[in-house]
């Protein structure tokens, strides 16, 4: 039983990071109708910035402070980078076919990663997470501190996002623009501003996600691949649903952890990498039952 629960905790930890990445995709999608494939590069950039900031800051206040503080600054820097990308490369493409813009984001992703790779080097850069792979016992379960940190940080970020979208002027404007752009314009909402804001938020979320993921093995050039797991997560949850992104991310994290834990025991003939396929298998299974994802709306395309 405790093996099972420990796997679930691990899954919820990484799953909550997937949820952040998925949220970024969905927020950009809702604002601009484009799936941005630049998310992996933004995630990698954020992790790299954190890996440079933590040692530069040294030990501040209490254990972990310089890590969390660095993540926050990395999120802001990455948000600024995302803003820049949106303004220079995406905004001029407004009105072009969605598919074309998506391919452009793919190009941006590759370009940004080439640059960022130069700051990583060949091996893995330590991210400066103070607890490394340390474990603690919580309620009789043996879990890694980093998985608890992931859950806590993500819970905090999602709460902040919730209040932003429910209460703040710009959050409300973004929801309105997602429903009807022209009507939002007649309210005085700048749709260009909404596009920019969606990119900035997604960039910030990706940076936090990347930094949290790198708490285990550090930042290496392959880290970006993890961001792709957010794709089955958003399809699972429903492309246009923020709740769906969170649930989808968590489900995929847990599925991956459970498959990783039990598959070798019960189905060793499947080989070693089944856990990597689990997210996609789960996505397929859900789509067979609910074609628009768990929370997605049938008419994702509005006129």
């Amino acid at each position, binding site marked *: 039983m405790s093996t099972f629960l420990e796997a679930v905790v691990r899954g919820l930890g990484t799953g909550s990071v997937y949820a952040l990445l998925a949220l970024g995709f969905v927020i950009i999608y809702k604002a601009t109708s484009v799936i941005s494939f630049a998310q992996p590069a933004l995630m990698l950039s954020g992790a790299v910035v954190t890996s440079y900031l933590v040692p530069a800051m040294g030990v501040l206040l209490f254990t972990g402070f310089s890590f969390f503080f660095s993540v926050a600054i990395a999120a802001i820097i990455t948000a600024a980078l995302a803003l820049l990308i949106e303004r220079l490369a995406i905004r001029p493409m407004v009105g072009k076919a969605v598919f074309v813009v998506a391919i452009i984001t793919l190009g941006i992703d590759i370009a940004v990663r080439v640059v960022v790779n130069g700051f990583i080097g060949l091996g893995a850069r330590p991210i400066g997470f103070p607890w490394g792979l340390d474990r603690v016992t919580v309620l009789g379960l043996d879990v890694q501190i980093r998985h608890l940190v992931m859950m806590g940080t993500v819970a905090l970020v999602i709460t902040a996002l919730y209040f932003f979208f429910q209460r703040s002027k710009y959050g409300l404007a973004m929801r309105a623009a997602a429903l009807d752009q022209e009507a*939002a314009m*007649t309210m*005085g909402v700048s749709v260009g501003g909404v596009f920019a804001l969606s990119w900035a938020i997604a960039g910030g979320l990706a940076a936090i996600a990347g930094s949290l993921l790198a708490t285990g093995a550090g930042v290496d050039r392959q880290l970006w691949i993890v961001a792709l797991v957010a794709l089955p997560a958003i399809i699972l949850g429903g492309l246009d649903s923020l709740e769906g992104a969170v649930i989808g991310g968590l489900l995929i994290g847990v599925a991956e952890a459970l498959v990783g834990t039990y598959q070798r025991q019960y189905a060793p003939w499947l080989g070693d990498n089944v856990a990597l396929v689990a997210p996609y298998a789960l996505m397929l299974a859900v789509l067979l039952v609910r074609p628009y994802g768990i929370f997605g709306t049938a008419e994702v395309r509005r006129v």
Partner: protein
Amino acid sequence: MLSARNLEVVYDDVVLALRGVSLEVPDGRIVALLGANGAGKTSLLRALTGLLDVHEGEITKGSVSLDGEDLRRTPPEAVVRKGVRQVLEGRRVFVELSIEENLKVGAHTARASMAENLERVYSLFPVLSDRRSLTAGYLSGGEQQMLAMGRAMMSNPRYLLLDEPSLGLAPLMVEAIRDVIVEINSTGTGVLLVEQNASMALSIAHHGYVMETGRVVLDKPAAELLADDDVREFYLGLHPGEDGSGRKSFRDAKHYRRKKRWSA
């Protein structure tokens, strides 16, 4: 004063929607803009509020201005800040947001005075006040129209441009909308009222314009338009003679010609 001068509007580089339209909305007045489907009423509103871009349309000649200041290059959000607000044809409320959230989005450019504007709008539309947290998509057509208008009033605009507010509404609701327009106007907001329902619009307007295939064909005080035979025939559904005026036969030929022109 909000005005358009010799305005020419083209969509997709080829479709000529307005062919030299001039119109003025003085402060604090109600101006009615009548015309059949496709006459160009909505296009004129879009030209005034900067929304042509969204529809691949552009102003190719003439000007739109507010107090003499050119609005041609002003983006829609800046037009709103200058106090000119349009209520789109078909209401277009944010269906998944609550009534109050819709109104708050309406206050996007006037957050500082949001609380007092909320109260004002709720007293103007008591139906909305009773159900503040209801999802807007569940409102009836008439209630959605009220929400759309209330939302536009959330920045206390100087000019309100209404695109067919009575569209698809039952007579009682049309009356309610008309009363609200009068009330909004009585506090100093100038109104440009685009309507197919000419009797409603002309009953409250000070001045009226009639458009036909991209041109203004009549431009008169509302009372004179109400008495105009063509307007009576084509917009009020009254035929000369029916109304006891008895001057029918000798004008038939002329009417036929105009009718052809008007329905082209």
